[in-house]
């Protein structure tokens, strides 16, 4: 096995262009497992850990760019105000994994259980890809994650990072697993309110071949808030039954399966509970803020 060690993005892109079969490695927390289990045996690796351009983030106003090489530990330390991203990062693995594992690796692996992915989905993030031949191109998250562990990245491309608009409203990320840490999501849910755009966002992990959004539930909630005047008055009461009806619609967006980690029935059940909780937290938070201000 050959390991290429680019020091700059330019070098990395040149290598990827000339040896498209070379497999990028960042933290290695997914790839090394694949290699150890003999599921993958790449001839050539490109180690991206020296490429400074990838290991950075920028916030221009409300436009956030997170480099592919950002580890969960750094995300937690440097971007704690991005609540859902921080909560998702904290739920990943153990301290060792959070020190090595990266956002780019989570995207590259494209598992339906990848914990950063519902956060990206809820933010309508774009995945930024880059190649020596064509430069940068941005792909909406759902055009990037095309199937279980399948992405639309081309052989000569690297993931540069992801870009999204930071949302002003309350948000949360929750992950259910059968142990209190170090667990692959049985289901995960990211919920966010965008009071500015008067929309709600909900994205789910581990309930379908890719991360999914629940557009009908989102539309229902946005309309319910509209009708009840909640967008304009965060203290306005949310009509009875809204939370439950929203959660039912979120459940309807899932296509879970039975596997060793959990049953489909439990996944639906847990999504219902998480959707209700996340909405109640968000409503409560807005109401509290409104009272304080």
């Amino acid at each position, binding site marked *: 096995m050959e390991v290429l060690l680019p020091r700059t993005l330019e070098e990395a892109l040149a290598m990827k262009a000339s040896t498209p079969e070379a497999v990028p490695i960042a933290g290695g927390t997914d790839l090394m497992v694949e290699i*150890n*289990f*003999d599921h993958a045996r790449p001839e050539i690796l490109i180690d991206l850990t020296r490429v400074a351009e990838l290991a950075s983030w920028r916030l221009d106003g409300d436009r956030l760019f997170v480099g592919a090489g950002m580890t969960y530990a750094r995300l937690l330390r440097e971007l704690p105000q991005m609540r859902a991203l921080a*909560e998702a990062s*904290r*739920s990943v693995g*153990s301290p060792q994994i959070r020190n090595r594992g990266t956002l780019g690796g989570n995207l590259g692996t494209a598992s339906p259980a990848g914990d950063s992915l519902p956060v990206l989905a809820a933010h309508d993030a774009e995945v930024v890809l880059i190649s020596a031949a064509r430069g940068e191109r941005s792909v909406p998250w759902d055009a990037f994650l095309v199937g279980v562990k399948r992405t639309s990245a081309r052989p000569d491309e690297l993931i540069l990072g992801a870009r999204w608009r930071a949302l002003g409203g309350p948000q*949360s*990320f*929750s*992950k*259910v*697993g*059968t*142990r*209190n*840490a*170090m*667990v*692959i999501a*049985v289901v995960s849910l990211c919920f966010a309110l965008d009071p500015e755009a008067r929309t709600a966002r909900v994205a789910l992990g581990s309930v379908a071949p890719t991360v999914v959004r629940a557009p009908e539930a989102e539309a229902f909630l946005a309309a319910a808030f509209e009708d009840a005047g909640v967008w304009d008055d965060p203290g306005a009461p949310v009509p009875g039954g809204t939370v439950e009806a929203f959660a039912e619609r979120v459940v309807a967006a899932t296509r879970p399966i039975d596997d*060793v*980690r*959990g*049953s489909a*029935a*439990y996944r639906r*059940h*847990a999504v219902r*509970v*998480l959707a209700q*909780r996340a909405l109640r*937290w968000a409503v409560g938070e807005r109401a509290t803020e409104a009272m304080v201000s």
Partner: protein
Amino acid sequence: MSTQLRERVRGVVGESAPRIDGVPKVKGTFAYGSDLWHERMLWGATLRSPHPHARIRRIEVGDAVAAPGVHAVLTADDVPGKKLYGLEFADTPVLAWDRVLYAGQPVAIVAAETPELARRAVARIVVEYEVLPAVTDMERALDPAAPKLHEWGNVLRHVRIEHGDPDAEAEVWVEGYYETAMQDQAPLGPEAGLAIPAEDGGVDLIVSTQWLHVDRQQIAPCLGLPEEKVRLTLAGVGGAFGSREDLHMQIHACLLALYTNRPVKMSYDRRESFLAHVHRHPSRIWMRTGASREGKLVNVRARLLIDGGAFASSSPAVIGNATTFAAGPYEVPNALIEGTAVYTNNPPCGAMRGFGAPQVCFAHEAQMDRLARELGIDPIELRLMNAVHTGSVLPTGQVVRGSAPVREVIELARSASLPPEPEPPPMRHPMTLPGGAGNVGRGEGLRRGVGFAVGYKNIAYSEGFDDFHQARVTLAAGPGGPVVEVHSAGVECGQGFSTVLAQVARTELGVDRVTLHAADTQLDSAGSTSASRQTLMGGGAVQLACAAVRQELFDRARSRVGVTGALSLADGWVLAEGVRAVEIADLLETPITATRTFHHRRTTPLDERGQGDVHVMFAFAAQRAVVEVDVELGLVRVVQVVSAIDAGRAINPQAVEGQSEGGTAQGLGLAVMEELQLRDGVIANASFTDYLIPTILDMPPVRTEIVEVPEPDVPFGAKGVGEHATIVSTAAIVAAIRDATGRELNRAPVRPDDVVGLRLPASSASWPPAPDVPGQEPLPAYHGVARGQSALTQSS
């Protein structure tokens, strides 16, 4: 004349002496089996059956032999000696021929230059299988129409205990059905060893195991070698918990080494480790408990079924234990308890910490809670009212003659203060709630519950087995003062056994420098490091050998220095009538060596009615568990465990606490997450990604209360403590979840589906009939299949 000698000897019996292997293990410098290395070594790999039951039509190895770097590809035809081995019965093929009986069974082995080349070569072996119908359900195995795994059928052993009048009527009865899942020992160190061919045609094997001599006794006949040509040395053991009692890579590596005349290392990866060792038996237990209105137990009727998988392993002994302990540590005047271990096409099950006791504890403790509810009596009072004590008669008719501080452990576990009531939800960090790092709640649906369990188990081997332990102690002069060398084949597998031996030697000889000789087969057997027995057995052997050394030292003191009166040893000196007379170092111009063998008191087999003096002695434990349950999501957080451990005497209190905490972690695992999931006989979660064991966020603080009521007639009055906590913690934690949720929860582990009501309680139509068997003897023995480890007891 070093000054050290004048200091008090530290690290004696009763002190929390630091672990001899502690610092290297923490620093990462301790060499485990997987770290073994030899310059010329080849790597072995194993081809395993993908099918739970199939006929082998053809094995084609040509492609594998021709693959680069390959030195050997061996199948059953290449086994020069006996083709079967086994811990209790030789029913397990070294390599399969004709039929495979479980998914994961070894079929062929390869030696190659690198692990990768070996694995690639394995992939080139072609095996043509004819898939046969598999028996993957333990009740189905009892059906006379089910396919038979072995000539003698699917019953491995049926034990029947009749006590008093089994038809005795009671005023109140409660009935329950219970299931426990297949648990894995999940030792962090995978199976590994290195076989080195020797010039005499024999082989030296360095291996992580639990009992060197029983390994050798099984290995040598298969290699066609006399035992003295198979020499074993212990490699660093990264945990065992029973998983290393059976052979794994031992014979395979030796075969490859002898065939290639090169050292061969085999080291399993995590997946293969899950496939290659035995597991904790899944159990189904039907139980009726009868009592008087006042709460005195009158009668226990129980039917136990455990799944032994494809080969015997230690199932006969496990069902013996489970059946004898099924009524719990309670006085029960009448009982009928029947236990059956069956063969199925599931992966073999055998020894795991607790050895049949955790399964029955789960059942008998749930029954006690039911009974308490039915009678309107406090459940702990009910236990106290019925607790066995010294002099009690057990369902086997055995009289508890040693210490039995059951009331003490119950009182200590119950009276410890409860954890403070939790802060109201907004004040609590979600990390501290059920779901932990998943951030799933702010206290919604949170309920607290308290559960209690008492249990017991034997120390050392039972039913007539003489599992002796030999040790050699040498006292010699060293540059810094006298040094004791302790040699025994006893295995340190992480619990602190070698430190215990050193503490015993220091105590007996008054010398603080102790070195431990590597465990190997130069001496006679030390028995297995299992059944919580090595503190008793190894401690006993070292104590005997030290006594002999001391006697020689006193003889020298009398004859050479002329001291008189009553002699003793302390802090490097021989004392005469309590006064320092001569330094030990001055008597050691030649070293003093003594080799002694310790035997525990003899026990007897179970007779026709399941009566007998079957166990050497008993150890008891009680735990109280406090849990918080998110009843909406079905997630559990164990908040506190109080663990009261009957140690007889704590040789090393910190080590007792370690066993209490580690055992609790393993019991907690079975309570809420650990389960090998089988799909038609195939393990579906053979990895640490999907076989979850508790993390530090799952473990509560454990408060250990050590009860010291010395066991009479054993060294220092000490009992072993390796298993107690595991036996009771699953039962206590599940009881606490029942208390929090009000649900029946009769199956461990409890899944979120059970808590939220998506899955109904486990149920079973009726008690399975007792199989038609000739008696208490295991069926393979009855049919003349050679005895395994018991042969070792004849050698002394």
